[in-house]
């Protein structure tokens, strides 16, 4: 079976156990869900160990065959990891624990179903990062669709159903395009194995067409302006515990896909459209920042902030050199942690003060000093303060993009200032602003709430101070991609 | 006499039948028009079996089948019409509008 299979399907343990527990025993359910969400982390740590000790983790089992000889098409069940996907697996496992802990505090009704769906979602996400076969990738990719739809639609805010539909349709279209790309590749190459496709020779026009389609498909997920409106809606409407996963890892599938498939499969064509990607990244970066600057509501502000940060990922990818790619990967992970922490805090604040409007949250540092402090810290991480993960990624990304496209890079640096502007504006107005929060006796961060905070903040600092902890794993991926680019 | 004349006649008959089936208000007449269309087919078959490229009995046998089936169809159609009439007391086609949209 292999460790990877065990890892990907380890959430099933939780699902089964939860199903066995009668729905009356809420406390037991919560305990089981949290404990079971640790299982994937253990598995992924084992996988991490194995990977770095040089063990061959990949599995390949025949699975589906279409057509008969000599016109047959085979799909294998193939799992494997690269350095980057390994880190993403770890990130998923960590964020899932954190999100589950958060959910135990913030999800009130229908807890069991929530946990079941989240665990199902986790299988999808883990599978996406672990698969080495496009069909398998797609199946896992789509597997996230239904749980997300139900989670948003059932546990979301006022406009939850609209948000759920927006999610469904945008992602549906995105994955539809992806599916076409996959099957065109399948039909042309005869296999959907990553390596086989990467080594296949396709005509220039075909690979350009496929690449552009891929860009759109993953552009929805990432998201790339103007395909982003769904994501803002989801960020605002979905329960914060879910947004932690959504912003933390689900959106990262877009970045992963662009790097793994976009550059991995079509390096030459990507070289040709790299300027376009860079401009898209620039637009994302600046547009997101500008809009974030005038938002009045925390969740939409950080939604636009995510868009802006994904712009940096795009810039890194467009750089097509070691520094840029490594920066993009770093940013992917760093933003995953930061966004998750931000939305955890928003969840806490929303839970306790029942509002997320910046103007109504003034003076938070009086009522909830610790929350305010952590919010400030994560805000600083988000604006790329050295010592935190955001800086390393921004630095490397700009290092990369300056080499290949200095002008775009120079314009992009405006984003750094804008980011600081909107983050400070929001954080300062909230934590230090005019004291609007009249309610006394609002509890600050306490007890269990420190678990998510300390895990995520710890990781953000760890990556910021010792970036080698990540480069260690990521570099193999970067090198593999750079090798394909031929640089 | 070439086969063309028969073909034209059959085509005309078919068109007439179709036109009738689409325009007549009375369901019975509509069913009869459908019979007309089927008979156009029979005419074709018989004509081909006599004047066709490869004259053979097959066409006539085919037309026998066709006639039989047409009869069955008409019988079933009329039976259903009677059931409908029992419930709604109408044989007008345009009154069958319970379901739409």
């Amino acid at each position: 079976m292999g460790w990877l299979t065990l890892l990907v399907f380890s959430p099933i343990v939780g699902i089964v156990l939860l199903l066995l527990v009668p729905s009356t025993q809420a406390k037991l359910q919560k305990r089981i869900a949290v404990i079971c969400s640790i299982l994937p982390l253990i598995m992924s740590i084992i996988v991490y160990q194995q990977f770095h000790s040089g063990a061959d983790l990949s599995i390949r089992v025949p699975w589906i065959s279409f057509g008969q000889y000599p016109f047959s098409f085979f799909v294998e069940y193939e799992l494997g990891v690269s350095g980057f996907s390994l880190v993403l697996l770890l990130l998923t496992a960590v964020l899932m624990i954190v999100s589950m802990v958060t959910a135990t505090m913030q999800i009130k009704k229908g807890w069991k179903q929530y946990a079941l769906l989240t665990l199902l979602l986790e299988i999808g996400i883990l599978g996406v990062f672990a698969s080495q076969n496009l069909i398998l990738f797609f199946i896992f990719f789509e597997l996230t669709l239904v749980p997300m739809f139900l989670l948003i639609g059932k546990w979301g805010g006022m406009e939850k159903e609209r948000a759920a539909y927006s999610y469904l349709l945008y992602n549906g279209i995105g994955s539809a395009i992806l599916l076409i790309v996959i099957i065109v590749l399948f039909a042309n190459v005869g296999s959907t194995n990553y390596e086989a496709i990467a080594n296949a020779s396709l005509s220039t026009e075909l690979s350009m067409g496929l690449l552009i389609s891929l860009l759109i498909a993953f552009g929805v997920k990432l998201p790339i302006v103007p395909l982003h409106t769904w994501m803002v809606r989801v960020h605002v409407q979905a329960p914060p515990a879910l947004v932690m996963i959504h912003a933390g890892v689900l959106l990262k599938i877009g970045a992963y896909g662009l790097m793994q498939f976009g550059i991995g499969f079509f390096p030459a064509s990507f070289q040709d459209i790299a300027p376009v990607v860079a401009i898209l990244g620039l637009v994302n970066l600046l547009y997101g920042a500008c809009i974030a600057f005038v938002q009045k509501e925390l969740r939409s502000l950080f939604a636009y902030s995510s868009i802006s940060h994904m712009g940096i990922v795009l810039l890194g990818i467009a750089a097509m050199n070691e520094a840029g790619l490594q920066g993009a990967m770093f940013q992917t992970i760093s933003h995953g942690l930061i966004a998750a922490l931000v939305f955890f805090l928003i969840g806490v604040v929303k839970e306790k003060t029942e509002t997320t409007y910046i103007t109504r949250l003034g003076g938070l540092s009086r009522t909830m000093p610790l929350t305010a402090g952590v919010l400030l810290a994560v805000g600083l991480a988000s604006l790329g303060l050295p010592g935190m993960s955001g800086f390393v990624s921004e630095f490397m990304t700009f290092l990369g993009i300056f080499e290949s496209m200095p002008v775009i890079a120079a314009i992009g640096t405006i984003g750094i200032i804008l980011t600081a502007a909107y983050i400070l504006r929001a954080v300062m107005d909230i934590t230090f602003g005019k004291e609007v929060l009249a309610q006394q006796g609002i509890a600050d961060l306490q007890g269990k709430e420190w678990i998510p905070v300390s895990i995520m903040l710890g990781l953000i600092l760890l990556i910021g101070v010792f970036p080698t902890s990540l480069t260690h794993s990521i570099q193999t991926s970067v090198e593999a991609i750079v090798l394909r680019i031929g640089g | 006499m070439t086969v063309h004349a028969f073909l034209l006649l059959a085509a005309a008959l078919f068109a007439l039948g179709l036109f009738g089936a689409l325009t007549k208000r009375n369901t019975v007449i509509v069913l009869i028009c459908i019979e007309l269309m089927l008979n156009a087919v029979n005419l074709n078959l018989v004509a081909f079996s006599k004047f066709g490229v490869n004259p053979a009995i097959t066409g006539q046998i085919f037309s026998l089948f066709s006639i039989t089936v047409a009869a069955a169809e008409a019988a079933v159609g009329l039976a259903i019409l009677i059931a409908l009439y029992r419930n709604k007391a109408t044989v007008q086609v345009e009154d069958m509008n319970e379901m739409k949209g």
Partner: protein
Amino acid sequence: MTQIAWIIPFFPLMTFLLCFIFQKREWHHLCSRVGIMTTGLALIGSITVLIGQMIFGNSEAVISWLSIGDTVFSIGYIVNPLNALMLVIVSLVSFLVHIYSKGYMAGEERLGTFYAYLGFFTFAMLALVLSPNLLQLYMFWELVGLGSFLLIGFYFHKAEARAAAKKAFLMTRVGDVGLLIGMILVFWQVGSLEFSAIFQAVSGGDMDSGMVTLVALLIFIGAVGKSGQFPLHSWLPDAMEGPTPVSALIHAATMVAAGVYLVATLFPLFEASDTAMLVVAITGAFTAIFAACIAIVQTDIKRVLAYSTVSQLGYMMLALGSAGYVAGVFHLTTHAFFKALLFLAAGSVIHAAHTQLIGEMGGLWKRMKGTGWLFLIGTLAIAGMPLFSGFFSKEEVLLAVWKEEHYVLFTLGLITAFLTAFYMFRLFFLVFMSKKIIPYKRRKKIFESPRVMILPMVVLALLAVGAGYIHTGWFGPFLGEWLASGNEYITLHPHEGAGWLMAVTTLLTFLGIWMAYLMYQKEKLDRNYLSEAFPGVYEAVLNGFFVDVLYQRTVVFATKCLGIVGTWVERYVIQGILHFIEDITILVTKLASKLQNGQVQTYGAMVGVGLVVLLLIGLMQGRFF
């Protein structure tokens, strides 16, 4: 001995961690002690390193921090005369400020937090100074900015403090972006960010001259932001919203000097480009006189000092831009001491008078003699009174400018020297001398500050007087020789004291003092004459030439507009397109379902139409018509 340098920053970091964890009220007395102790240790360490450098020379050590492909970015430390000196200045001022704060901040509710922030800042500043490469420097450059931000906004319940903190962070960040770009460009030119590698590349001619100029200018933007040079200066006066010890430490002695330090550190790079040097000099000179002008009319004691700081930093830039490496560093050193002294003394005044407005002070000399004397020493030092440290360093700066034959800039420098003496003594007279302004009742409550505050000032006062003698034409240019000894890329210009220059500056200083005396003490001259004659100009100067308003109206406004336009686009264009698609779908649905009218003959007709259309198509395909 120099090998211990890397430990030094970790002492204050310990303050940060300890005070952050034990920030509850009952631990406050420990916080200040821990803070003082660790900075004391840092000071001892710094002095050791300084001595060590003098004896054993430079040393450097790095460890790998981040690798991209085959490129390795490292962190570590370097010890050379310049940063050994900076190390001592920073840890000394920090140490004194820590002590001073114990008195000044007594009774503060969030004392633990305050010391934690101070510790954090000191840590970042020391690490910045020790940086052996641009990346590390940049990282701590940002972190000192954070420390400054946190401390400016320490009284966050005041809206002005919040705004000032935000402004400080953002405006310096504008500069930082320049530095970042410059740094990255350097990397792609040189392949490394180590200072030594950069200098080698520059001196070896590996970078073409245009690139050198570009890089130098970009890096200079960073320095402009941090050191409050025009046009990114306006955050510094606002930063006075922070507690006064903070102003002394960060916004007078250390962080704002980091820009100057940066230019000095990268001096070989700047020197390789005449354009860059000229820009640095012009910016410095302009800032110097520009800020001095504004300082004259300010009514807030700390703002006067703040503009004075800006002006003095301009002086240092002028020196560096005129190839006066030693002069710049020298002025940096002396300025650190006397400006810290002035701020601490001002803090002492504020502590006693409970106001920052000069208009509400006056005649404090009697009540606070100690502070008065100390403030006077500082004022004399900054004004360039002979025998005080400011005199020597200022003379050195002007000499350097003269030698570079920047006569216009030289003139500006002279005028600034005069203005400095004038506005500083204006301040002194208004605060300590003039008698009538403070109401008697309030004056009674004013007492001299406690000894814990006075003591650090005394130390600084001694240095404000004595620091000038390390580099004089009379006893020998020790500082210059030493600085040059540790840096192979610096060529020391022979120090030739120009007697006439000394005379001119002395004259100007006295002129300034005299005019201030006439205007504000004796009131022989109408102090309001000019402001009444040119109200518009006065208004402009008072508001710092409306630089802030300009920014508010352009940059901030534009960003907001873009944001609003973006939101609008979002709401009406993107959503509009989506609604359009939705509407079309609904329309099609409606039409199609209208066709589905329940009439069986309609259905049949559709079959018929379909048949006919298909037949037409088919026959057309077969070319039958």
